[in-house]
C-alpha cells in the first residue's frame, strides 16, 4: 500500500519554466533596442537632436492630441446617444458604430487621398462647376497633411473609445444618472457632473488604445509624409542606414509608450472604486425631440459613412473598374502569404497563451503573474520599434551561429533567421501575444479553481486536467484568440515592411506599395480583402454587444462556472 516518499511537485515546474521562457523571449527585442540605443556603434544622437528630433516630438504629440480629442468627441458622444437616448436607427448604431474598426487607417488614407487630391474627382468636379482652372483659383484643404492624418485616424480609431464608454455607461452611469435627474439636475448637468466622471476610467482606457494605435501607425504617416517617430525610425534605418540611431529614436518613442501605460494604469487603479454595480439596469431611453432626433441620427451615421461605407464603396468601384485576371492571381498569391503568416502567428500565439495562463494558474506566485504581464507588454510597443528589436536580435543570433559554424566546421551558415518568415512571425507574436493572452486569461478566469481541484483529486494530472476540463470549457475563446491575432496580423504593416523576406509581399505591403505609387485602383481588391477580414472581429464584438444588452441572456454556459441551481 505505502508508496515510496517522493517529491512529485517538481514536475509542474515545466509549466513555470515555459511561462518564464516565453516572457523573456518576448521581452528580448525591446531590451535589445534599449541596449543598442545606450551603446551606439556609430553615434548620430547629437546630430538627431540638433536636426530632426524636435520635429518628431512636436509632430507626434500634435498627432496624438488631435486624434485623441477627435476620438473622444466621436466615441463618447456616440456612446452616450446610443446608450441613453431614443432616436431612429439606435439599435443599428449600437454595433454599426464599430464598423470603421475594420478599416486600417492607411487604407482610408489612400482612398481619401485618391478622392480629394488635386487630380481627384472632388476637386475636378468643383473646378468644373465653378470654372476654376488652377490651384491658385480656390482654397481646398490639403489631405496629405498632419490635419489629414488626424482626420483619417480619428475616423477609424474612435470605435475603441465608443466601445469602452458604452460599456461603462451601461454598467455604472445609467442608474446614477437617473438618480441625479430625479434630484432635479438637468440632463446636461447630470451628464457632465455624474455620468462622465464615473465612466472616465473606462474612457481613458479606450483613449489609451487609440493613442497606442496612433503611435504605431506607419502607413498613413508615410503616405502623408507626416514626420512622426515611426516614420523617423524608418528613415534613419532605411535611408541613413544607421541601426543605433533608429534604436535611439525607438527608445525615445518608448518613453511616450511608458507615459501612456502609466496613465492607463492610473486610470484603471481608480476604476476599482467605481466598479460597484455590475447589475444591468434597463436603459432609460430618453426620447429626443423633433430636430434633435435627426441630428442624433446624422451624428451617428456620418462617422460610419465616412469611416466605413464610403471607402468600401470606392474600393469596390475601383476593384471593379481595374479588374484584371493576371493582377488578381498575383493578389491571390499575396493573400496566401498573408493568411499563412497570420494563421501561423495566431496558432502559435494561442498555444503560448494557454501555456502561460495555465502555468500562472496552477503555479501562481508573483513571478508567473509578472511573466504574463511582461509578455502582454508587446502590444504597447509600436511596430517600428519592435521591428528594429527583432532585426537586431535575429541578426546577432545569425552572426553568432555563423561565427560558430565557421570556426568549428569551416562553413558559413549565412543569415538563418533575418529576412525570413520566422522573423516576421516572431515580430507578430511579440506584438500580438497580448490579444491571445487577454482572451484566454479572461476565459480561463471564469472556470472556477474548484474545477481544477475536482479533476486533480480524481486522479488526473495537470496536463490531463487542461485537456479534459479546461480546453473544452474555453474552446470558444481559444478560437476567438486565434481570430483576433489573425486579423491584426493581416492588417499589420510596419513590422511586415521591415522584417519580410526579399520580394515577399503580403496584402498589406502590396497595398502600401501600390498606393504609394498612386496606383490605388490596382490595389483595391487587396485592400478590400483586408477590410473584409477586419470585419470579422467587428461581427464578434457586435454579437457580444447584442448579448450584453439588458434583458438578454448572459454568456453561453460553456464558459460559466456552475451555478448553485440550474
Amino acid at each position, binding site marked *: *500500500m*505505502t*508508496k515510496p*516518499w*517522493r*517529491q*512529485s*511537485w517538481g*514536475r*509542474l515546474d515545466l509549466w513555470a519554466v515555459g511561462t518564464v521562457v516565453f516572457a523573456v523571449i518576448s521581452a528580448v527585442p525591446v531590451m535589445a533596442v534599449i541596449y543598442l540605443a545606450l551603446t551606439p556603434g556609430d553615434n548620430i544622437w547629437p546630430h538627431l537632436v540638433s536636426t530632426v528630433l524636435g520635429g518628431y516630438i512636436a509632430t507626434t504629440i500634435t498627432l496624438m492630441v488631435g486624434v485623441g480629442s477627435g476620438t473622444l468627441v466621436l466615441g463618447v458622444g456616440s456612446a452616450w446617444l446610443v446608450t441613453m437616448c431614443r432616436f431612429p436607427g439606435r439599435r443599428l448604431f449600437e454595433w454599426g458604430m464599430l464598423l470603421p474598426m475594420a478599416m486600417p487607417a492607411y487604407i482610408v488614407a489612400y482612398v481619401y487621398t485618391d478622392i480629394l487630391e488635386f487630380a481627384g474627382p472632388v476637386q475636378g468636379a468643383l473646378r468644373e462647376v465653378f470654372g476654376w482652372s488652377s490651384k491658385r483659383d480656390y482654397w481646398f484643404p490639403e489631405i496629405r497633411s498632419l490635419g489629414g492624418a488626424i482626420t483619417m485616424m480619428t475616423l477609424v480609431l474612435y470605435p475603441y473609445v465608443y466601445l469602452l464608454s458604452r460599456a461603462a455607461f451601461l454598467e455604472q452611469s445609467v442608474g446614477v444618472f437617473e438618480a441625479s435627474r430625479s434630484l432635479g439636475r438637468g440632463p446636461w448637468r447630470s451628464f457632465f457632473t455624474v455620468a462622465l466622471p464615473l465612466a472616465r476610467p473606462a474612457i481613458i482606457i479606450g483613449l489609451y488604445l487609440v493613442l497606442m494605435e496612433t503611435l504605431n501607425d506607419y502607413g498613413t504617416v508615410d503616405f502623408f509624409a507626416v514626420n512622426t517617430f515611426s516614420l523617423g525610425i524608418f528613415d534613419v534605418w532605411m535611408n541613413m542606414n544607421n541601426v543605433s540611431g533608429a534604436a535611439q529614436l525607438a527608445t525615445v518613442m518608448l518613453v511616450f509608450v511608458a507615459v501612456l501605460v502609466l496613465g492607463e494604469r492610473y486610470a484603471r487603479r481608480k476604476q476599482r472604486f467605481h466598479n460597484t454595480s455590475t447589475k444591468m439596469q434597463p436603459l432609460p431611453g430618453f426620447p429626443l425631440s423633433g430636430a434633435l432626433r435627426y441630428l442624433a441620427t446624422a451624428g451617428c451615421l456620418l462617422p460610419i459613412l465616412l469611416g466605413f461605407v464610403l471607402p468600401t464603396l470606392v474600393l469596390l468601384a475601383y476593384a471593379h473598374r481595374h479588374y484584371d485576371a493576371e493582377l488578381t492571381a498575383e493578389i491571390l498569391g499575396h493573400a496566401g502569404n498573408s493568411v499563412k503568416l497570420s494563421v501561423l502567428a495566431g496558432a502559435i500565439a494561442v498555444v503560448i497563451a494557454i501555456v502561460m495562463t495555465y502555468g500562472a494558474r496552477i503555479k501562481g506566485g508573483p513571478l508567473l503573474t509578472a511573466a504574463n504581464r511582461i509578455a502582454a507588454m508587446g502590444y504597447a510597443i509600436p511596430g517600428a520599434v519592435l521591428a528594429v528589436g527583432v532585426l537586431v536580435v535575429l541578426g546577432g543570433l545569425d552572426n553568432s551561429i555563423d561565427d560558430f559554424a565557421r570556426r568549428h566546421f569551416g562553413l558559413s551558415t549565412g543569415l538563418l533567421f533575418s529576412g525570413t518568415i520566422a522573423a516576421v512571425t516572431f515580430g507578430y507574436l511579440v506584438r500580438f501575444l497580448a490579444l491571445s493572452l487577454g482572451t484566454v486569461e479572461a476565459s480561463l478566469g471564469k472556470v*472556477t479553481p*474548484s*474545477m*481544477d*481541484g*475536482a*479533476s*486533480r*483529486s*480524481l*486522479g*488526473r*494530472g*495537470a496536463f490531463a486536467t487542461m485537456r*479534459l*476540463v479546461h480546453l*473544452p*470549457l474555453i474552446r470558444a475563446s481559444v478560437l476567438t484568440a486565434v481570430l483576433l491575432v489573425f486579423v491584426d496580423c493581416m492588417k499589420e504593416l510596419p513590422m511586415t515592411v521591415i522584417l519580410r523576406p526579399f520580394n515577399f509581399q503580403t496584402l498589406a505591403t502590396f497595398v502600401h506599395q501600390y498606393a504609394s505609387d498612386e496606383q490605388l485602383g490596382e490595389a483595391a481588391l487587396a485592400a478590400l480583402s483586408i477590410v473584409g477580414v477586419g470585419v470579422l472581429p467587428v461581427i464578434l464584438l457586435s454579437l457580444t454587444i447584442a448579448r450584453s444588452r439588458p434583458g438578454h441572456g448572459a454568456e453561453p*454556459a*460553456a464558459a*460559466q*462556472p*456552475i*451555478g*448553485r*441551481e*440550474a
Partner: protein
Amino acid sequence: MQGLHMVGVRHAYGRTQVLNDISLTVPAGELVCLLGPSGCGKTTLLRIAAGMERLQGGSVTIDEQVVAAPNVQVPPEERQIGFMFQDYALFPHLSVFDNVAFGLFRLDQGAARTRAMEVLEQVGMTHHADKHPHLLSGGQQQRVALARALAPKPRLVLLDEPFAGLDTNMRARVRQQTLSVLKQTNVATLMVTHDPREAMFMADRIKVMGENGQILQSGRPEDIYYNPVEEYVARLFGPMNMIKGTVRNGALETSFGVLSVNGQDDGAAVRLLIRPEGINLSSNGDQPGDTPVEVISAHLLGDSSIVRIRIRDGINSGAEFQARIPGAFDLMGGGRTWARVDPAHVFPYPQEQ
C-alpha cells in the same frame, strides 16, 4: 492507522498566519467536522490535505502514506482522495455519468461503467445519468458531486461546506442522505462547516477552530455543547444571556439562586453565560430557584419561542434575559411567570480585565 493524520500543520498567506499548529486524526469510517468562523482557514486546511495547497509546515499522512511533509509533496492526483467543493465543481461539459466516471480512467470501460452506475445508484441518481449538470436541481448536483468523489473508492473524503448552497428544507434531507452514504462507505471523512448544528448532526467528533487558526476544542458534539472550554465555543450556538458578578464561597449569588462556578476562585470577577434554552419558564413558581419575572415579549420561531423577560426581584432585579421554550408562549393567559435556570446550560468564565 487507516485514515487521515495531520500533525502540526502551519500555513501563511504572505505575512498572515492562517493555520497555527493544527493536528487532527480521522480514523477510517469516522466523520470529523471542522467548525469555525468564516476566514479561519478551514478551506485552507482541506486544500492542504488534498495537496492543492503546498504544505508549509507539519505533515499529512493518509493510510500510513506520508503525502506531505517537509520535502514530500505528493500531488493531488496521486493522493486517492475525494474532494467535494462548496460549488460542487461539476464539469458542465460532461454528462452526470461522465462526471462520475471521470476518476475511473484506470479501470477498463466495463468496470468503470459498472462502478459509476453503482455509486449513482447509491445516491439515487441513476435516472439522471445522461443529463448535463445544469439541468439538475441543487440537491441533485450535490448528490452527483458526492457520487463523483466516492466513485474511485478514495481513502479519504474531504467535504467543504457541502450543504451551504442548499435551502433549509433540502439541506436537512440531503444531510441525512450524505451521512448514510458516507457511513455505508466506511471512509474517513473530514468535513468543514460554520454551522454548529450541522456539525452536531453529522460529526463523530467536532474540532472547533478559532480565528487565530488554532483548534480550541475537540470532542463529541455533546462535549462541545455541554462543556465548552472557552466562552468563544459556548457562544457558537447563538446569543447568550450573561450575569456578571464576584465569586463568594465558590459560587455566584443571582436572582436564580446560588449558581456554581466550578473552578473559579473566591473574589474573582466572573461572567456566567446562560443559554436561552437553559432558562425554564413556569406559571406556578413552586420549584427551588424560581424567580418572578415580567414577560416583555414573545417571538414564535416555529417549534420553539424566544421569550424576553425582566427579573423582578433579587440581586439581578431589572435585568433582561431571553428564554427559549418549546412551542408557543401564551402571552394572553395574563398569569404570573417564574423563571428558573438549568445548571447544565450555565457556563462560568473569568471576566477579562
